[in-house]
C-alpha cells in the first residue's frame, strides 16, 4: 500500500506547537509522509497546501479556543474545491461538546490532551484502509 500523506497544520494565531510537532514526528515514525505547515496559518493557506500537496489527511492542532471558527472554515474550503475526500482530524484544548458539534459537521475524530500518539496512528490507518477500500 502507498504511504499515507498527512498535512499537520496550526490554524490561527495560536503559538502552541509542542503537540503538533510531537504528532508530526510520531506519524512520520509510523511510516506516513508528513508535511508540517508551521505556525499562524489561515484556513485558506491550509486548504491550499492540502490540495497542492495532495494529502489524504489534514491534522489540525488548535489550543486557542478558536476551533469553532477555524475548523469549519477548513472543511468548507476543501469542500468548495471538491476535496471532501480528505480527512480533517485534529486535536487540542477543545471541550467535548464542541468536538461533538465539529464531528457532526464533518470532521473526523478529534482528540484531547493525554491521547497516546499510537491512538492517532491507529485511527488514521484504519480510516485510510476503509477509505481506500471504498474508492477502489
Amino acid at each position: 500500500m502507498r504511504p499515507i500523506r498527512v498535512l499537520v497544520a496550526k490554524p490561527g494565531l495560536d503559538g502552541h506547537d509542542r503537540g503538533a510537532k510531537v504528532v508530526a514526528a510520531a506519524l512520520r515514525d509510523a511510516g506516513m509522509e508528513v508535511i508540517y505547515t508551521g505556525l499562524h496559518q489561515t484556513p485558506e493557506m491550509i486548504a491550499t497546501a492540502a490540495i497542492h500537496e495532495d494529502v489524504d489527511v489534514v491534522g489540525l492542532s488548535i489550543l486557542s479556543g478558536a476551533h469553532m471558527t477555524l475548523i469549519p472554515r477548513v472543511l468548507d474550503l476543501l469542500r468548495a474545491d471538491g476535496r471532501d475526500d480528505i480527512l480533517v482530524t485534529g486535536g487540542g484544548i477543545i471541550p467535548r461538546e464542541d468536538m461533538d458539534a465539529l464531528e457532526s459537521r464533518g470532521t473526523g475524530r478529534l482528540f484531547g490532551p493525554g491521547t497516546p500518539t499510537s491512538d492517532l496512528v491507529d485511527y488514521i490507518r484504519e480510516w485510510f484502509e476503509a477509505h481506500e477500500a471504498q474508492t477502489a
Partner: protein
Amino acid sequence: MTTAEMLELDRLRDEVAQWRARFDAAKKRNTLFANSGDVVEPLYTALDVAGDASMLEVPGEFPFTRGIHPTGYRGKLWTMRQFAGFGTAPETNARYKYLLAQGQTGLSVAFDFPTLMGYDSDHPRSEGEVGKCGVAISSLADMETLFDGIPLDKVSVSMTINGPAVILFAFYVAAAEKQGVEVSELRGTIQNDILKEYMAQHAWVYPIEPALRLIVDNFEWSAREVPLWNTVSISGYHIREAGATAVQELAFTLADGFTYVERGIARGLDVDDFAPRLSFFWDIHNDFFEEIAKLRAARRIWARHMKERFGAKDVRSLIMRFHSQTAGVTLTAQQPMNNVVRVAYQAMAAVLGGTQSLHTNSMDETLALPTEQAVEVALRTQQVLAYETGVPNVSDPLGGSYYVEALTDKLEAEAEALFEKIAEVGGVVRGLETGWLQRQISESSSRQQWEIEQHRRTIVGVNDFVTEEGALTIPLLKVSADAERYQLARMAKMRAARDDSVVKPRLDALRAAAKTDENLMPLILDCARAYCTLYEIRAAMEEVFGAYREPVFF
C-alpha cells in the same frame, strides 16, 4: 579542613561504601525517573557536599543561593498573582476586582491571541479568536476600561505581552496618565522577552534585530521615566512548557538574559542603569527537589555572571528576582481534580525555592479557561501554604540538605556546560536563526512523550491508575460568543470618537523615526495617547522592520 574533619569524612566514606553494598544487593523497584531523565542517587551524604562554599552562605549575601533578602518571607510574603483575562475589558475588569477582593495582592494580565500578535480585534486575522484566551486590548480605550476603578499607583500589574510589548506598555502608561497617577510611581512588569518567543512561545512580530532594538529602547526610556518598572521578565516558563528539561530551561533562559545585558551594554548603557529592572519567570514542574535546586542555582549563576562577566556593581543588578508559575503542562484532562494536588506540591517547591511572586494554575486549565471557583481554589492553595504550613517561617529551609545542595551544584555545572554549547553555535541569536535551540527543546519534548507512552514515566490518571472516563465532574467556563461582537462595537465607537487629524501624523512620525536610531518609546507613547490602535502602531513599524519568518521543522 582540619585533620579531625578529614578523618570523619574518611569514616563516612567507609560507611557509605558499606551502605552501598547492602543497597546494591537489595531488591528494588525499577521506576526511578527524574523529570529531566537524569539519574538520581539513592542517598546523599556529607561526601557529596564536602568543601561546598554555599553551605557557608546566608540569605541576602552574594551569590544569593539562599535567597535575595536577609529576611526571607519574614519581611514580605510572596505576591499572590493570578494570571487572568478573558473576553472584553469590562469582563476582565470585573474578574480583577473579584480577585483583589479575595485577597490577591497583584494583577497579571492575560491577553487574547490577536493582542499577543499585535492585531486589532477588528482585523480579519482576529476573527474567532477575540477574547478567547485572554482579554482583547486594541487601544488605550480598552486599557482604560481594563483598569477602571483600580488605582495603578497602588496595585502592581504584570502583563504577558512580547512581540508588541512596547505598544501595550505605552497603552498602560497612557492609561495611568489618564488616571492622574505619577508615571514614575508605576510598579509592575511587562514580559517583553522576545528571545523566548522565537525559542518557544511564538508570539512574535518583528525579526530578531529590530525586536532587540525595541527592548533596549525600552531599557533606556524606562530607566529614566518609570524606574520601578520591570522592563523584561526573562522567561523560562514557555521554554519548559514547550518541552525543555529543567537544565535546558535554566541555561536557555539565563543565556537570553545575558544576551539582553550584552545588547544594553552595546548601546552604551551602564549595566547598573538597567540590570536592576530585569526580572525572571520560572516554570515549576513536578520534580520537587529538582525545581527547588533549579531556583537556587539560577540565583547563583545570575549573580556570578553579572558581577564577574558584566562588571555590575549595584547589588540590585546581581540579585535575581523572579515570578513562578506552576507547570501547566503537568495538568491532566483526565481526573482533573488531581490537578489541585499537583499544583499544591509545585507551589510549595516555588516557595521553598524563594519565589517573589506566584501563580498557581487552576484544575480545569487543560480543558478551558478557569472558572471563578477553580481560580479560587488555586488562590486558596497559596494562602494555605502561606498561613498554615509554616513553610515561609525559615529562609531557604532546604539549604544544607546534602541532596539539594549537591543538585544545585550539579544544575549549575550543567547550565555552564550548555552556555559553552550555545557559544559554540554562535550565541543565542544565531542559535535561534539556525533552529538549534528550538531543536534541543523539540527533542526533549519527543523524549518525554516517548517515556510516557512506554510507561517509563507515570502520569497518574493518564497512563496508570486510569479510570473509565465518565462525564466530566467539574464545570467549565464558556467565553460567550458575544464577546467578539461586543468588542467590535467598542472598536467602532472608539474609531468614530477619536481625533483622526492626530492619528496619521503620529503614525507617520513613528514610521520615520523607526528608520533612524532614535529611541522609539516616546513616539509610541504619543501614538497611544492619540488612540492609534495596536495594529496601526504595529504596522507603522513593520513597514520599516519587516516581519519574522520562523524556521519550520519537526
